[in-house]
């Protein structure tokens, strides 16, 4: 396996997500899900596994939504994806297609030429599309799940282009559909927290709770053993030799906090160093040195500065207090209680 930080991994190269995927399917059997996690944790890779390897009785459709800037684009893209599945079956009447033909679309050689997108009734198209696929799946007693990546980006785009009201309508419509069809599920994910976008909408008077029927999954890093296994696989893929490859792999996992993206990065750096020198063996010290170099690099290639700048974004005027608390915690070797922090800071 070759180190590939940021790139697309083959399913077999995605390590340490089996249990998470199993839990997600188990939850989806009951309700829809939204996943939250910081960027580059591997949400899209988890969705890729779910798209390519759904359990029996499930159809999963993956879509990256960040490209859509209005609700009509969103509705049409879902319609087009659904058509790919319906066209092979042709067992239920295609209400969405009929609607589009009635709105001025034309069918040429079996392909529907869509009407101009301006002023299309996006809600109706959406509702008909979901109804079509749900009914089709019901014939075989199957469920459908839409894996919608970068949902918050799309909502923010819609709010900017068409106003907050339209974004609110999209969320409400999706909630309504989830409650209408028992075999329809949604798994939403995004690089920006959905709560940020909904918070913005609430500032405009939105009072509904569009996600209260969904289960929230926080995606974290992979387990220690998986991180060590991944490190070892990548070291081998890079043809890097070590006297004790297990020790090097452990150090990579430790230094990267079991974060797969950074594990890939560290091994890639080690590979890059190998090509520039005659040294043919790597050590745990090399790992520490590489990570330290990245931490102190003026250009901050892994953007660690984000962890400081986001404090201001998240906590506004309270950022200074938060920084003091974090500084205090960072200096302690053991976990400490609120009282200790308060006492320390008051004394100082």
């Amino acid at each position, binding site marked *: 396996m070759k180190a590939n930080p*940021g790139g697309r991994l083959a399913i077999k190269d995605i390590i340490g997500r089996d249990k998470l995927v199993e839990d997600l399917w188990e939850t989806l059997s009951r309700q829809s899900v939204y996943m939250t996690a910081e960027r*580059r944790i591997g949400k899209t890779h988890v969705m890729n596994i779910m798209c390519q390897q759904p359990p029996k009785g499930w159809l999963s459709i993956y879509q990256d939504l960040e490209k859509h800037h209005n609700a009509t684009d969103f509705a049409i893209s879902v319609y087009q994806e659904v058509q790919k599945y319906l066209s092979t079956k042709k067992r239920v009447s295609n209400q969405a297609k009929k609607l589009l033909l009635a709105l001025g679309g034309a069918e040429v050689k079996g392909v529907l030429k869509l009407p101009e997108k301006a002023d299309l009734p996006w809600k109706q198209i959406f509702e008909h599309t979901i109804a079509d696929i749900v009914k089709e799946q019901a014939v075989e007693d199957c469920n459908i799940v839409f894996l919608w990546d970068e949902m918050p980006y799309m909502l923010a785009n819609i709010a900017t282009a068409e106003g907050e009201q339209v974004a609110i309508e999209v969320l409400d419509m999706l909630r309504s559909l989830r409650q209408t069809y028992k075999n329809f599920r949604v798994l939403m994910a995004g690089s920006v927290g959905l709560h940020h976008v909904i918070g913005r909408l609430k500032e405009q008077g939105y009072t509904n709770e569009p996600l209260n029927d969904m289960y929230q999954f926080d995606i974290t890093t992979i387990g220690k053993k998986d991180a060590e296994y991944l490190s070892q696989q990548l070291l081998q893929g890079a043809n890097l030799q070590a006297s004790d490859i297990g020790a090097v792999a452990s150090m990579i996992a430790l230094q990267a906090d079991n974060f797969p993206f950074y594990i890939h990065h560290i091994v890639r750096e080690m590979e890059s160093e190998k090509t520039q020198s005659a040294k043919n063996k790597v050590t745990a010290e090399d790992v520490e040195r590489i990570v330290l170099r990245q931490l102190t690099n003026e250009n901050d290639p892994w953007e660690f500065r984000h962890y400081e700048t986001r404090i201001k974004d998240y906590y506004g005027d309270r950022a200074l207090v938060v920084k003091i608390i974090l500084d205090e915690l960072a200096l302690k070797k053991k976990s400490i209680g609120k009282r200790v922090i308060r006492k320390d800071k008051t004394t100082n």
Partner: protein
Amino acid sequence: MSIKSTDIQLSIFSPNQSNPEQLEAIFVQREGLLNRCIENIEASAYTDGKHHQLMVGPRGAGKTHLVTLLVHRIEKNKKLLKHLKIAWLNEDETCVTFLDLLLSIFSALQRRYPLEYTEQDIADIYQQSPEQAQDFLASYLSDALRKNNDTLLIIVENLDALFESIGDKGQKQLRAYLQENPLFTLFATSQRLTDDLTHRHDPFFGFFQTEHLKALSEEEAASLVSKIAALSNKLDVARFLKTPTGKARIKALHHLSGGNHRMYMILSQFISRDSIDTLVPPFLKMVDELTPYYQERLRWLPPLQRKIVEHLATSKTTVSVKSIASRLFSTNQTISSQLKELKNKGYVKSHKRSRESLYELTEPLMRICVEVKENKNHQPIAMLVDFIRIWYDRDTIREKLNFIDEGMQEKDYLFSAKNSMKAINSGGGDANEKGKAYLDIAEIYCYQNLWEDFIKAFGLGLGLLEASSKTDGDYAALRIMVDYLYVNFSRGDIDHNKTSGLFDVLSKDKKALSAFGVDLLRHLGWQAKENKKKHNPILTQWVSAWKLAANGNSDFAITIRLLEVGLDYLQSHDESVFLELVESERVILKNAFGLE
């Protein structure tokens, strides 16, 4: 601009127009990197994993050279080509939407595979709305790749410019397309890492495997220049580059070019045995040729940014925001934001000194070219180039120093003086030989502290050298004289009148003045090492004496500037004092103190 000889033509500004085999012949430093890049592309073609790679480096760093070879080597790999298509986008094609980008990819495919991708395939899109055309093209490309089980290698040069022009919307559309269709492997180049690529909230954060292309080291530069010489059948030049003087010349060029590939390609034309001691004229010729190129780059900038760059180019030190703001009658806030943009564009770089940031131009040659344009003459540049050249050539002058190191005896000097007198008294003969003999005699008088005799012999020696074609080696005596002068100065045997008198003699020969300046600086560095970097008050008096003697002479300005900053460093041991100098001078001074 290109390097031409009977059989070769290397385009310096457009390597993709050059013969790839010739580019292979002069490829240095990045063999390992290129192999890794190709391995990643192979992995993308043969597996479901897709690698996206980004090479970052300033103009002239060899990005297009690397891309051209990457494509050349892939084209020779028949097995890989069974699974890989290549779309090498035109460097200057303007894309302002995702649709433009898709069209650009299609055009690149059509150029390379005219039978598989025909204009007829997409003829209908011109009757459609932009959204429909975009959907059609996106599906057309992904369907075609899926049908043939192909992966598409998209090569984008200047990704930073592309991302800027397609904006946030286009970037999101591109990223979504790549995520939904794992059929692509991107290989891109960029002059810098922009916010689009590094900010966590932007679509392409952490998306690419980024490689910052390193500048050439001296050895790599020597290898590049040798390879160019060998390719051009200039075997004498290839041999010359292995000599001590050839190596010194490479060091000087390295200093001036900042390790930039393109600059070496240009400079390689001027390195020849004929120009051993005359780097200045060919260098100035190159500056003249490059000036329009840099002027053009300046013209692209908004007026205030252009003014900032011009100000930095003419400044003798790194400059603070406050200083620029006051010079340009602007506010700190405005200048600060403009500098941030210039930094993003790769024009300037900054250094922290306590709480303030000091700025200077990123490319030493840009500074030189702008300065030429501002000054309308070459004098300050010629001085700098000469100083740098002598600085490195001094490394090659060993004989005299070895003589000193072995411990000099009176009898050696007497023997030397006897030979020198013989040379002077022989009728006729070479003026240069006589000049050198007088300098040898002057050296002995200097050692003996016979001032009047020393000045007389020294003046005669320089006069004779002046009248003939001289080389740096002819000034070797100066280096030893500086040591003796300092010893005599420390004893109080040399006063201001004497240093001024000596300076008057030196200033009649600019080359001697430069060489003397270099020797003063080396002496300061040597003294610093001897005194374990502790400050010695006599050194302050010594530098003051030469500043007084120079009396503002512009030919000695670099020397005085370097000596004064050197003294500051000895007093403070704070490396940030070097920021009082621009980079080309800073490197020399650090070198003198053994900090480089």
